Structure formats: C-alpha cells, structure tokens
C-alpha cells in the first residue's frame, strides 16, 4: 500500500489467517467474518470465547482468533451456559447451523434462551445439512429435494413437516432481549447483518441475544454460488422474513 491510498476493506484480526475448508461461495465464510469484525471493533478478542458446533462450521475453532470450544452436536448453547455461568466476565458466543440448532439441539437453544443466558447465538440457516451430505434440515423448504427427501420435502403424505422459524419461535419466550433474522445474500444485506451481530454482542450482557442469518449451501443445493444467493433471496426470505423480533431495549 502506498501513502496515496487508503484501505477501505481488509482482513479482520478476529480471524486467523487459515484458509477455510468451506466450499466455494459458501456464506459461512461471510458470517465468520462479520463476527470477527464485531470482535475487532468492540476490542474484545481477549475476552471472548466462542463455541464451534458440529456441522460444516465445526472447524470454526480454527478460524476465529479467540479462545474456542468445540461443542457436541446441538449442545453449544448448553456448553456456552457452562462457560458463561462460570465466567460472567467473558463474552460468549455460539455459532451453529440449522441441523445443529433447530433439530438435535432444539431443546438446548430454547432453554438457554428462556433462562436468559447472557450469550450471543449466531445461527447460520442454510436449510440443509451440509456436512453430512445434504440431508433435510428443520428449515428445509417445502418441496426442496435433499438426500433424505428425494421427492422434495413433503409435509403431507410423507409427514416431513414444514420449515421451523427459529426467530419467531424464540420470540414466544419472555426472557430473550434481542432476536433478529438477517440475510447474507447481497453486500447490502451483509452490512445490515453486521450491524445486527454487533448489536447482539453489545446487548449480550443484558441477556440472551440471537441472530439468525439466512445463508446458502451451494454444494448441498446443487447450485452455483450466485444461483444459490438468488434462490435464497427468492425462496427462503419469504419463508424466513428479515426483521427484528425482539429488542427489549427498543420496546420490540
């Protein structure tokens, strides 16, 4: 860089320099970066502990530049509870996929939210199980083909159910202080998502904070990255509307 120019976008120090194992175009990488930038901007890297889930983002512990704990499948909110109760002075976040959070870990996320654990949960919703090869997730759209819904998710005869909307569901609880859903599909969306994540961290020590992110899985969906982003915008966002479902401080 010469003195005649200024960097307007660069690599955050909240991330390690390790190349990720994510597929090309997978938005897990974007979500990671937003969390890392938040940690940077709040200057809390040395006070933060993150939980990596089981799922494609299991290796998140290699990518975040803070202390990390790898949690068993679905139990990151319970593990985070153990961390935060023991060390209330730390910033604690969990990063989870939809299989992890909304399927096997459904009881753990709801109870952590209901107890008002002072943690931030980053929920990457890509409507599929990426890691294990593209099986149906609780958030899979109706009609979507996956390796376990070969004829498309069928809530009728096959009884495979409808997509579960976690943000709405958690918003039926009294305790959480911040619940939002954002998307990562365009630069504009990403900037909004970033603000949401930052707000969640800022509110963390007042109660439970939750940021759902509509993401993609080009590999699991069998689409190119660009197609994936378009498809998610067209098909997922109507089912998973963007918005703030709880912000106690703002009276929402």
């Amino acid at each position, binding site marked *: 860089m010469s003195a005649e120019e200024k960097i307007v976008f660069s690599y955050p120090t909240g991330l390690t320099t390790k190349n990720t194992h994510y597929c090309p175009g997978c938005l897990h990488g974007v979500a990671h970066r937003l969390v890392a930038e938040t940690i940077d901007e709040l200057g809390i890297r040395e006070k933060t502990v993150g939980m990596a889930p089981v799922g494609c983002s299991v290796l998140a512990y290699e990518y975040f530049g803070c202390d990390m704990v790898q949690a068993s499948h679905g139990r990151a909110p319970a593990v985070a509870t153990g*961390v935060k109760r*023991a060390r209330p002075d730390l910033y604690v976040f969990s990063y989870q996929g939809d299989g992890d959070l909304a399927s096997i870990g459904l009881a753990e996320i709801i109870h952590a939210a209901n107890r008002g654990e002072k943690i931030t949960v980053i929920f990457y919703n890509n409507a599929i199980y990426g890691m294990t090869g593209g099986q149906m997730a609780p958030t899979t759209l109706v009609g979507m083909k996956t390796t376990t819904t070969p004829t498309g998710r069928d809530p009728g005869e096959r009884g495979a159910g409808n997509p579960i909307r976690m943000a709405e569901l958690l918003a039926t609880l009294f305790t959480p202080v911040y619940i939002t859903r954002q998307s990562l599909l365009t630069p504009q969306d990403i900037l909004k998502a970033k603000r949401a994540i930052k707000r969640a961290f800022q509110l963390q020590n007042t109660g439970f904070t939750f940021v759902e992110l509509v993401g993609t899985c080009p590999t699991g969906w069998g689409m190119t990255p660009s197609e994936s982003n378009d498809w998610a915008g067209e098909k997922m966002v109507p089912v998973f509307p963007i918005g703030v479902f709880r912000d106690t401080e703002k009276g929402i």
Partner: protein
Amino acid sequence: MEKLLMKGSEAIAEAAVRAGCKLFFGYPITPQNEIPEYMSKRLFQVGGAFVQAESEVAASNMIYGSAAVGERVMTSSSSPGMALKQEAISYCAGAELPVVIVNIMRGGPGLGGIQPSQSDYWQATKPGHGDFHSLVLAPASIQEAVDLVMDAFDLADQYRNPVLILADGLIGQMMEPVTFRQPTERVFDKSWAVTGCVDRKPNIVNSLFLQPQDLEDHNHKLFRKYAQMEREEVRVEEYLMDDAELAIAAYGTTARIARTAVDAARTEGIKVGLIRPITLFPFPKAAFERYVGQVKVLLDVEMSMGQMIEDVRLAVHDRIPVRFYGRVGGMVPSPGEILDQIRTLAQEVSQ
C-alpha cells in the same frame, strides 16, 4: 472437627462445595434429588452458580463448558439419566476436561425402579463411544463418599479427565455422621483453559481429529494417562485377608453388608475375608492377584447380575474359582444371605 449427621446426597454436595466446586448442573431423578436441591441453595452462597438443566444431556454439556474455562464443576444423576450423559462424558474425556460426575444408581433396565442397585458398573467402567476411561470411585459409607468427592476434584484436575463417583441409592439416601477435612491446596496447571486469550495464542478445547494418525496419537496420549492411573491411583480395602481361604469381592454398600457377613462367618471359624475395590477403574488387580495360591474360592457379590465379576476373574487370571451372588432390581442382599453363601463355599472347600 465437627461431626454432622448428613444424608449421603447432601454430604456429597457439601463436600463438592468445600472442594471448591463452584458450578453444578443437574436434572432431578430419584434417588439423587437432594444433590441438585442442596446445590440450588448452597452454591449461590459461595458465589457459584446452580442451573437446573433442561435434561441430563444438557447438564452434561454444561459441565463440559464450565470445565473448559477451568472451574471446578459437578453434575449428578442416576442410571437412566447417566445413559443420557454418555456422549458428553466421552467428549469430556476426548477434550481432556476435568469434571466430577456422581451416579446414585437405581435398578434397571429401562425405567426400572428407584431402589438401590449397582447395575451401572459397566456403563461406568467400560464406557462407549470411543476408547476412553473415567476414573471411577465407589464409596461404601457417607464419610468415604465425602472424602472421595474431595479427592475426585483433585484427581480430575490432575489427570484432566472425568472422575465418576459410583454409589447406590443407599449411599444417596442414608444418613451417617461425617466430618469434612480441609481441601488440599494443590494447584493445577490450567493454562489450557479458555479464559480469554490475553497475552497468549487462542486456546482450543476440542476432541475432533480428522486425520486418523492424529486421532490415534491422541488415543495413545489418553491411554498413557490411564496407565498412570493404573500405576498410581488404585485404591482397595482388604479386610481379614491375612489368613483368608475364602474371600468376598464387593464394592460400595454391598461390601459393607458383606463385611457383616464376614464377621459372622469368622465367629463360626470360617476363614473368610473381603476385598473391596474403591477404585473400579483403575481396578485393583494386584490386590486380587496376590491371593492366587492362598484363597481357594472367591465370592463376588453385587447388586447386579454380574458385572464386576469379569474384572475379578481377569485379575486372578481365572486361577481362583469365582462364584457369584447377586441381587437386583432394588433388592439388597442381607448379611444372612451372604453368610449362607459363605457357609456353602466353606463346606465345599473343606471337602
């Protein structure tokens, strides 16, 4: 030191607090409800925290979290609840986290019953999934439970490994006088804990090793610790074994009951003794092995259908015949029943 008459479950909880346990995560299940109940009062007094977890699965993952930051933490449950903790215990072992877990056993299988049992010997000593061991301590009295719980925290920290207290419903429910000793002042290295990466590289608590060679190396590392436990941590009580021609193998409350029977048999002139494993893993092999040649028959007594008996047979290399007497499902063997067994064996041996 003041003596207090305390219920086993409450004494166990108090011992944990005195050992520096700051966090407890548990879920109700009979016959150990008094542990979480006691902790819900006690821990907030010492600046710690109690959470009634939504399930045993959650509780066992919460202790994983607290252990990861280097705090002393405990959970407790009973048999079916312990089954639900198996995955997380394996994670704790894999990630080398010091946790203390209390199992106040009841009868099974399935929902079973709520009365005392020892049917989780296998679940405790030969756990799955993956190759690992918890260090397993089996108290036979409330005083011993208290002492072992305090030791458990040190052992967990020393080995960075789960330590199980395996007791039956009687230990959980009965009252006996206890005294609490001072905790040791041992200091343990916790530089591995995730406490915020101030002036150091980030720490990672993890049990995933995608490269088989790495995972094999990790397994070997763990097994070096288990080998050290086998060398250094074996505990066993021998009672009247010096001249014993018959011996009983029993742990926990069953061993106390057996001792009453041994005393009675001795008054009848039967040379019988008792070997009581206190650590179930590491199993006190040598304590058994050395009686090959001296003891003519071993009687293994359990409140289960015969689980520890395999370790007993292995310990004596099948060179002493090992007989079995078991009661299950909440039935507690009486001293008289065991005495009858001893008498029969004594007759057999003398023929």
